[in-house]
């Protein structure tokens, strides 16, 4: 089975200047997200905060997917399970009266990480499409387990009495505070992923993506690197789940469905794989388009579907690819002029 080839937009080596430029777009993104609430509140459109909170939460999950797909060629089709596990940790703890984030967050991330470790040991024996399907298998098992958790609502899900407190303070309950908490988490996750892929660890990981055999003969225990990446991605998704449970004040097996895992992949591909900020752009584009098109017609998928096809057929490297191509065109014109 042919491993997904290197994406054209994945920077393998970055000379200092282009690295500076490659940080410009993410920085712009974060600045825009940081000033958005000011505009929203000025127009008393608190609803926009909720929408973008959701966008940022899915961005965290999409980041974890991009870490695996874009840098390790591990196409995970079960990532929603980790999101769900993180969400259920919040829900289950809160139904037992434990509502502080200082407990819930570590539990959520540890539970997701453990699940990633156990399933990763099995999944990473396989490659390519087989890996896609085996991660799906574990995702489905998690889904059916959650659906049968009768004490925690089973298929109907579980309503949280309230959002988590932070060291006893009810900060998350205030939309604006929660928004900035999520933004901070997103920036931290992004910085973590960025430094990971730039580190030796990341270079080995990318090396295994290009040619796993070469890395093995060079003496690297490829399997271990991949497993660590898989666990980190799992924990990040667990973190997203923790945030999602708090945002919706509700947890449900639906958070773990394979459709959700598929949507996470689509978000990353739409934005452009192997760039990290592409995952954020993709998540935003996916969710905002969904929101916007659904406002026009209930048949919005008839527009959204062909749009995806067009993006794939005519654009390489997703939306980031479009931006990069436009950027190059502009630069060329100015270069000549």
């Amino acid at each position, binding site marked *: *089975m*042919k491993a*997904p*080839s290197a*994406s054209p937009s994945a920077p393998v080596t970055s000379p200092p200047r282009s690295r500076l430029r490659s940080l410009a777009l993410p920085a712009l993104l974060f600045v825009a997200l940081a000033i958005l609430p000011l505009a929203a509140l000025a127009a008393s459109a608190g609803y926009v905060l909720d929408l973008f909170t959701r966008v940022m939460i899915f961005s965290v999950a999409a980041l974890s997917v991009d870490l695996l*797909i874009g840098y390790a060629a591990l*196409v995970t089709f079960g990532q929603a399970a980790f999101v769900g596990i993180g969400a259920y940790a919040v829900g289950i703890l809160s139904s037992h009266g434990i509502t502080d984030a200082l407990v819930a967050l570590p539990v959520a991330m540890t539970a997701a990480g453990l699940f990633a470790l156990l399933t990763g040991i*099995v999944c990473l*024996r*396989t*490659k*390519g*499409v*087989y890996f896609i*399907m*085996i991660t*799906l*298998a*574990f995702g*489905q*098992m998690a889904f*059916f*387990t959650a*659906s*049968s958790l*009768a004490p925690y609502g089973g298929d109907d899900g579980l309503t949280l009495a309230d959002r988590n407190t932070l060291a006893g303070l009810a900060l998350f309950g205030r939309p604006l505070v929660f928004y900035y908490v999520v933004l901070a988490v997103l920036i931290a996750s992004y910085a973590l992923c960025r430094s990971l892929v730039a580190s030796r660890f990341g270079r080995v990981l990318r090396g295994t993506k290009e040619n796993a055999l070469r890395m093995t003969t060079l003496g690297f225990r490829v399997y271990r690197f991949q497993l660590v990446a898989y666990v980190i991605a799992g924990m990040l998704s667990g973190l997203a789940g923790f945030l999602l449970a708090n945002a919706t004040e509700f947890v449900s097996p639906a958070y773990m469905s*394979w*459709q959700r895992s*598929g949507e996470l*992949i*689509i978000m990353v*591909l*739409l934005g452009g*794989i192997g760039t990290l900020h592409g995952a954020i752009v993709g998540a935003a584009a996916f969710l905002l388009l969904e929101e916007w098109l659904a406002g026009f017609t209930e*048949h*919005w*998928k*008839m527009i*959204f*579907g*062909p*749009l*995806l*096809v067009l*993006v*794939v*057929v005519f654009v390489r490297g997703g939306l980031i690819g479009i931006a990069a191509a436009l950027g190059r065109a502009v630069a060329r014109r100015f270069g000549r002029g």
Partner: protein
Amino acid sequence: MSTTLLIVQILNGLQLGVLLFLIAAGLTLVFGVMDFINLAHGVQYMLGAYLAVAFYGLTGSFFAALVLALAAALVFGLLLEVLVFRHLYGRDHLDHVIATFGIILFLNSAVKLVWGAAPLSLPVPEALSGSVALAPGLLYPVWRLVIIGSGLAVALLLYVLVSRTRIGMLVRAGATNAEMVGALGVDIRRLFSLVFGFGAMLAGFAGIMIAPILSVEPGMGDTILILAFVVIVIGGIGSIRGAFVAALLIGLVDTLGRSFSVDILRLFMASSTARTVGPALASMLIYLLMAVVLYVRPTGLFPAKGR
């Protein structure tokens, strides 16, 4: 757990198995020969069922509807190939995923627009309705036997086609090394279109045959698509034989698991616990099976050579 019940359940498992085979065969061929992940295969199954209902409404005859729907499924498959898939051969698998996912969204929504959201149905052909007694006290619906029979017939036909004809030889060669076949001067493009159209027709056929049993509704292809992927992965991608074995295996495990999991669990635990755990376990069983198979054999049961 009487013998009669067991026999009936085995037949039911076979029927699900051959249905899965009809879908998985096309999927595994397209995947094997063109290295193309076609998520839209499930909506082709759905479309087969819708077309059958539509043509039945026009002609009033099941068999006319069958023939017309098959032809339409073929045409539609070729159309998709020309419009979308052709541009994506040789591209990254992930490009296939996103494009065919887009097609799923579009078609699921389109059938809802054309035929409405309410489930539709197709009657069983008069001559083949009702049940037969296979043994005293063992009634079985004729139509389900027809599905099993026609599924096995298609399997046999495929076997002959693939192992005894020139086209089959090219397909086998293509599954092992497509570039080599192209280099040998075979019109690989035409071969691709042919395989693709044939696969679409098989999926359509499955949809038509199942329409009298299941409700025809938007999204009916999504679940079956996942099952079909489970089948081809367990069987080994590109292998028709693997798809056949795995399809029957999945059909039997799923059906028998559903019917007997609670009874078996009751031997070990309280009845009420068994009732809760049993169905959850039964739903997971095929995924568990896939995980175990892939753990032991990371490229499936019958890996096609050269991959």
